[in-house]
């Protein structure tokens, strides 16, 4: 364990931005704070950075308590969404700024600047000024500037959000490559779940100032702890249902389903939310009216590139909506068209039950 947040709370006037958050981050780990805007993820990052001070709780680095140590003295590297390169300095001077601040010996500075700029593939651009660089290049300079003084922790505040999609993809890999190479403990704030899932060793999902779940990306996607996580990470169908008996729920239309994954201890008869991912939703043409299947009508088929999304309206007692994601082949084999009736099968191992 290297970085530890212990029961951290931060308020801004009436608003509590972060409430009683505890978290441990291992040395060399890449952690993403993920959540919608206003969830407290940026505040939490700024508390770690020392740019804000927690009202309660403390933050420790190794054995030392960071409370009372200013951002200036923490030697953490930070990359901002707006790049924040100093406009009056060229690339080399931007990168060496922190080295001068941290009183590196003068003769070591040029070597360190070259070394770190080579790492981000910008060794040729040392004399350029920020306004002569593209957004992606500027952000790589910002990364080099943050890393140059060998910071204890690297903090990334939505570093890719201002870039266009293509550049974002390549920079995603580059940040990860550099981070692995240096083995530096890293926290990245993002609202983009794809970014979090592809880059992080562990993802911290936040909502309304609290942590909803901390897990590896595959676990987070495959086993969401709360309905919020299930909804926020990836696409998810939510259906209204009631507990039928232990391990089973009943939909309003009468369908009774076996469910393997219970995230509630609701008793028989209690309302629950049933969740299933579109790609786990199976469907065949025709109508059989079985008790463990759902009859539905195809409302809309949308082409997504590598696959199709099929919007379905459930038939019978109640007209709930859900969607399924199918490969192009699956659509063709089944000869699916809008307006047709299909039978939906929901496998028990892919069904999640959450409290209402």
């Amino acid at each position, binding site marked *: 364990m290297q970085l530890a947040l212990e029961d951290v709370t931060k308020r801004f006037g009436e608003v509590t931005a972060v409430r009683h958050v505890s978290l441990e981050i291992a040395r060399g780990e890449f952690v993403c704070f993920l959540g919608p805007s206003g969830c407290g993820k940026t505040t939490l990052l700024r508390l770690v*950075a020392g*740019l*804000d*001070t927690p009202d309660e709780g403390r933050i420790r680095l190794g054995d030392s308590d960071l409370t*009372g140590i*200013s*951002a*200036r*003295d923490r*030697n*953490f*590297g*930070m990359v*901002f969404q*707006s790049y*924040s390169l*100093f*406009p*009056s*300095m060229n690339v080399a001077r931007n990168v060496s*700024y*922190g080295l001068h*601040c*941290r009183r590196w010996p003068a003769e070591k500075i040029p070597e360190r600047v070259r070394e770190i700029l080579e790492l981000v593939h910008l060794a040729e651009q040392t004399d350029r000024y920020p306004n002569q660089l593209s957004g992606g290049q500027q952000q790589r300079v910002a990364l080099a*500037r*943050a890393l140059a*003084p060998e910071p204890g922790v690297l*903090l990334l505040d939505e570093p890719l959000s201002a870039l266009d999609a293509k550049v974002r993809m390549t920079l995603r890999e580059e940040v990860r490559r550099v981070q692995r190479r240096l083995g530096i403990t890293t926290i990245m704030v993002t609202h983009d779940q794809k970014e979090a899932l592809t880059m992080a060793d562990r993802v911290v999902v936040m909502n309304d100032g609290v942590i909803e779940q901390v897990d590896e990306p595959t676990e987070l996607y495959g086993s969401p702890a709360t309905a919020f996580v299930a909804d926020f990470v990836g696409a998810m169908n939510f259906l209204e249902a009631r507990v039928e008996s232990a391990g089973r729920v009943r939909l309003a239309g009468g369908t009774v389903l076996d469910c393997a994954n219970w995230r509630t201890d609701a008793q028989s008869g209690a309302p629950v939310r049933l969740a299933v991912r579109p790609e786990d939703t199976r469907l065949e043409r025709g109508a059989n009216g079985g008790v463990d299947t759902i009859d539905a009508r195809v409302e809309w088929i949308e082409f997504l590139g590598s696959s199709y999304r099929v919007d379905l309206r459930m038939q019978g007692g109640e007209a709930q909506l859900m969607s399924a994601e199918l490969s192009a082949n699956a659509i063709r084999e089944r000869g699916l068209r809008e307006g047709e009736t299909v039978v939906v099968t929901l496998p028990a191992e892919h069904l999640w039950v959450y409290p209402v």
Partner: protein
Amino acid sequence: MSAVRGFAARLLSPARAHTSSKNLALTIAVLVPALVFVAYPLWAILHQSFLGADGQLGFENYTRYFTDPSFLKVIGNSFAVALPATALTIGIAYVFAYALHRSAIALKRLWYVIAMVPLFAPSLVQALGLQLLLGRNGLLNRTLGTEFDIYGYWGIFIADTLYALPHAVLIMSAALAVADARLYESARMLGASDWRMFRTVTLPATRYGLVSATFIVFTIVITDFGNPMVIGGDYGVLATEIYNQVSGQANFRLGAVIGIVLLVPAAVAVVIERRVARRQAAAITAGAVPLVPERQRALDAVLLGFVALVCLAVLAVVGMVVYASFVRLWPYNLTLTLSNYDFDVQGGYEPFLTSLKMALTATIVGVVMATLAAYVAQNSRTGLGRLLYFISILPAAVPGMVLGLGYIFAFNDPANPVYAIYGTILMLALNTVYHYHAQGFLTATTALKQIDSTFDEASEMLGGGFLRTFWQVHLPIILPSLVGLGVFFFMRSMVTLSGVIFLVTPGRNLAAVSVLLLDDSGETTQAAAFSTLIMLFVIAVLVGIQITLRAAGFRDVRLIR
């Protein structure tokens, strides 16, 4: 001690409690001089105005003032000049700025520079030029044999219109320079006529500028001292009346009363102007597409004629001053000579050198104090920060003569520690800095807004301290704006008259005051020569700085404001 710390922490932002004592020290370091040199003199003049002959506070002075019909007449006179002169100035300035920014007329830069010329001269130069042109011994009467008399109402009216014109043109230019071409394209797509587009797009977009300029021009005209002093004759206005009471009859308390009377309309105008200016800033959106004016032959011809006529008027008046400065004995002997530049009366070149020293001092002090005040006011969300903001823009509402008179009451007293610098160049410089503090402060505030707040945090994360961040990160960004700010203080210091008129001494005179005294003692050609000297010097400095800035790679730096 800890109680003081606790108080400080509450006053300052709680997020940065660990740096609060440093911030508090800086806030106080900026606030104290502002209180001493703005608030205290104002309080002093207010106090004096209520001080009766028996030394008791009361309305004695005011009663005396408001029951005397001749004093009431002066108030009426002031408004009788200020209201129509404001209307005329705004009308001319609007069309002038419209021609510069919304038409395709030729020589725009030239017209603009000519319109700015009155800024480079003391406020009495227009009156001096008018006197030479239309006075009893003016060129007109001499050549045509007429008996035209410009002294009095019309003299003040024309002189002040010309004097206030550049200020109005600057504001109207700012309002008309930014236009969203998309609005005009939409209007045209919808079939709007040119007149309709002007009424529905142009006028609404510039209405805040229009209101703002109106109140600023009104303040300038009603508080102007130099022009009515030279050309007013028997037509007394508030500004000259203060001078007569104080300098002529040594009636300081009545001077204070008139000062307060003059302060009221100026303050009201400034309060309204500030409210409007805030909205103007928000009216321009980031996505606007710049408008490129199209050629419209007939309209362009009319506008060109108008602009040329206005410039002719400005140049005629200033040109008369320059011409007269080279004439042996106006208007009897018009042979050319340089002898007027000998300045054999009124201390020779001494006042000019004093003005130069004062201006350099005021430039340095002004840039530092206005920038620090803007910095503190922007970064401090405390009661002290708001107080500093208020004190910083308060001088906009205070006529120079009122502030100057306040300085006499406040500091001409051996018991006051500031008395140590009373009568020195530093005192004159401080008076000038705080006289023009509002405009300097607002300029500095705009400059500081160029600094992205994350620069501070980026520097902090990298271990940069306050000084390093300021010196290496902030300063290079705002340097061009600071040069512009320095030019502003320098220009105003070289031509200022009303603020310092009560503070100069025979031994330590200033250039603009010297012009007034020369004219007053009948040395018209020497007064003209001294004015010409000031104008040429200010213009030379401006051109020199512009060239230096270009050479250093800074483009589009606005030096005239």
